[in-house]
């Protein structure tokens, strides 16, 4: 379990993380979205003991991470810019990982490299950006760890590679029941693989929820009546957005789906449809409910 308590990290006068607290249960695939400068990368670096926070604590299964090799042995971090030795090929990188990372499985790496058709003897410097990220993911997944951290690693993959990487994550992270944290600019990159999602904004966590909960607690209602009506039809129901065109209205509602349906059916509508929202829409409405606008969050999620 990853426990982050009141972590603040500053770079000079800029506060990258402002009193962040999070708790990530064991076996969870945790996604974090946020615009540039939101603090996602900083948070991952703090969790991995790369950055030392000005205040607050980070523990993995109760043990502090900072300068703690025993804990770091259980973690693998893939930076947003993966590191490769100058002039090195994947064979050399695998040897380096094998030497420096306890639990690195060279045979597994070779298998994965073959599966992803990554050349072992070609200089990594000559790889495309996508290939470099694939190589970094494969190197990381070849380490037998309990915690995996990927910083914007999946952004920019083409659909085919993205699908293959998702399969890999299913195989080596979800199926093994280990914990992972993934960050991205885009919710779409994460929604299929994550159990839980958080939104970081200006160094703070503004939303943190189970994906299933997010998708079920917010939904869209389409409603029509023979007689004239207004928003008062939703009295007693939390409405995040209301729009009426002629006799048909559309509302984004938060609450228990069946309870809302029962209440609205009692008003004898001629049309009542309850539709699911995409995760993007859920995030947007949740944030607007919290008082954030698209502009404030960078409009990227």
């Amino acid at each position, binding site marked *: 379990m990853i426990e982050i308590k009141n972590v603040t990290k500053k*770079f*000079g006068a800029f506060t990258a993380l402002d009193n962040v607290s999070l708790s990530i249960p064991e076996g969870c695939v945790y996604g974090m979205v946020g615009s540039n400068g939101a603090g996602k990368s900083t948070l991952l*670096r703090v969790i*991995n*003991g*790369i*950055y*030392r926070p000005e205040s607050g604590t980070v523990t993995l299964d109760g043990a502090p991470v900072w*300068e703690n*090799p*025993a804990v*770091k*042995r259980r*973690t*693998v*971090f893939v*930076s947003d*810019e*993966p*590191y490769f*030795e*100058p002039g090195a090929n994947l064979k050399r990188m695998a040897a*380096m990982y094998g*030497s*420096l*990372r*306890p639990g690195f499985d060279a045979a597994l790496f070779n298998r994965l490299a073959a599966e992803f058709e990554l050349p072992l003897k070609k200089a990594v410097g000559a790889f495309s950006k996508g290939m470099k990220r694939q190589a970094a993911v494969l190197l990381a997944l070849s380490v037998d760890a309990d915690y995996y951290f990927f910083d914007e690693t999946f952004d920019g993959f083409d659909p085919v590679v993205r699908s293959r990487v998702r399969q890999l994550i299913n195989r080596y992270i979800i199926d093994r029941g280990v914990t992972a944290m993934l960050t991205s600019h885009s919710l779409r990159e994460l929604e299929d693989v994550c159990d839980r999602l958080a939104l970081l904004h200006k160094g703070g966590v503004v939303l943190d929820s189970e994906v299933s909960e997010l998708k079920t607690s917010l939904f869209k209602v389409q409603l029509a009546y023979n007689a004239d009506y207004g928003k008062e039809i939703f009295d007693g129901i939390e409405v995040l957005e209301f729009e009426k065109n002629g006799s048909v209205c559309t509302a984004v509602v938060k609450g228990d789906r069946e309870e809302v349906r029962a209440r609205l059916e009692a008003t004898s509508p001629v049309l009542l449809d309850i539709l699911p929202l995409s995760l993007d829409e859920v995030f947007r409405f949740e944030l607007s409910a919290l008082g954030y606008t698209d502009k404030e969050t960078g409009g990227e999620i």
Partner: protein
Amino acid sequence: MKKIFSIKLYAEGLRRIRTQLIVFLALSAVTSLSASLLVSGQVMRGVELAFFGIPFYVICVPMMTVRMFSFLNNRPGSDLFHSLPYRRECVFLSLLSALVSGIVCVISALGAFSYLFYLIFTHNKGLAPGSLIMFLLACLAASLLVAAIVLVTMTVSGTVFVELILSVIIALLPHLLLYFVECLIRSSVFSCTADAALLPFSGIENNLIFGIYEFSGSSPTFTPIIYTSALSLVYFIAGSILFRFRKSETAGHPAPSKGLQSAFRIAAACSISFIATVFFVERIINNYTVKLSAGILVAYIFSAVVYFLYEIISTKSWKSVLKSLPVFGAVILLNVCVFGACFGVYRAESDFAASPGSITDVKFRIMNFDSSRWTVSDYAKSVCRSEGVRIDDREILDELSAIIKIQNEKRGRIYTPDGAGSLQDLTLDVKCGAVTKPRRIFVSKGLSVRIYDYLAGTETYKNALRALPYPAGDPSVSGVSIYDGGKITGKVIDHDEMVKIITTLNAELETVDPVEWEELNGNRYEELNEIVYSFGNGVNTLAVKFSKELTPKTYAAVIKAAGEAD
């Protein structure tokens, strides 16, 4: 127990510099071969390898250090190395060990190749292994110091540009500043000697990065090697502490904080302006008509240019240049401090030992004799000097204080009624309380005689008169002159015979009246019997008078040796 070394990290470190090592090893082989061919037939002392040795520690060692710790300049690399399951001390020590191993490997190869090629090309006739080893040790010490300095700069910065600038500043500025302040003192305080150093070991020859030629040219000693190695150890320790507390986010940035960025920028500017300030002070003290010369003015302007240029290059931002403008006041303030400090040091040096009662005692630092042919008295005085016999006669000391004061005020030697020609140049170690400094004092012949008479009254002097040194050095100058009623006969005596004569004389002197012995040797008439031989390091010869009456055994031994010499 905390793990502070990892063999795997060490091996990884060696792999990181593998390519460089191969290139440098090849270069060391080529250098050794060239040196052995170039000086074939002559004695090789090691300094011939300087054309690889110096570029090695000036260029190759920084390259190896930057390569080894390159992750400190690179965010992805920093992420990887700091996320590894090792403590920072472990990463530092393991990689540092690999770096030092690489340096030792190249320098050892340089020595081994040299030895090998000398065996091949000169049939082992021209190699001086002792001085070759000393040169290699000097190269090693200089290399370690360079590596340590670069490493310290890497722990406080995250870009190669800043590290380069800071390395040059750390390596050069302290020594250069001390050197120029010492020059200022020597040129402004008349009593200061040429070897007056403000701090122990501040001499440029002790820092082997700069002093390797001077080190190799003279008979090499271990002092510069120990000093340079100790300095590098201090820097390595500082580097390890800074590495431990280094902010990882510094990678790729010129400085970990705005404060340090300002400090580095100020240091860059001050490295030029400080020297200009020292020269400015020197011109004021020595009453130059134009005190702020064009050269000094240009140096100040250049210093300001460096200040702003540093900011532009390191931050790549014009905005930050504007922001750095107010901090330029710190450069001015620091120069004012150096200005004041220079005057303070000048005043302290000028006033040293210049007031009555201030000198605790003096001893001879250098003794100048009229010729290299010493009398027994000269020898005894030199023993007093080498054994550090102190002169603490209050009257003499106060006269010396008065002379120092006038010399420094008038900036020259002060002639007394004794006459200009009679001034004696004395170089003394002057002790005031706990501080001892060398001073050059021009004294009247009368005072000089009193000082030497003081020495002659000491037990050390008296004992030295009767314990003459044994022959050493050039055997060709060993000889005797025997005066025999108007005829002087000269004979060359071989070394072994001369040793026997001196042994006999020293034994005989134990029973001889010291006053008579001193009187005999104070006699300058050439008609007396005389033994002449070289001693000590062979530079000087000693002329000892003897007589049939006072030293009959020695006389007999000389006659016997002279007869055998026929």
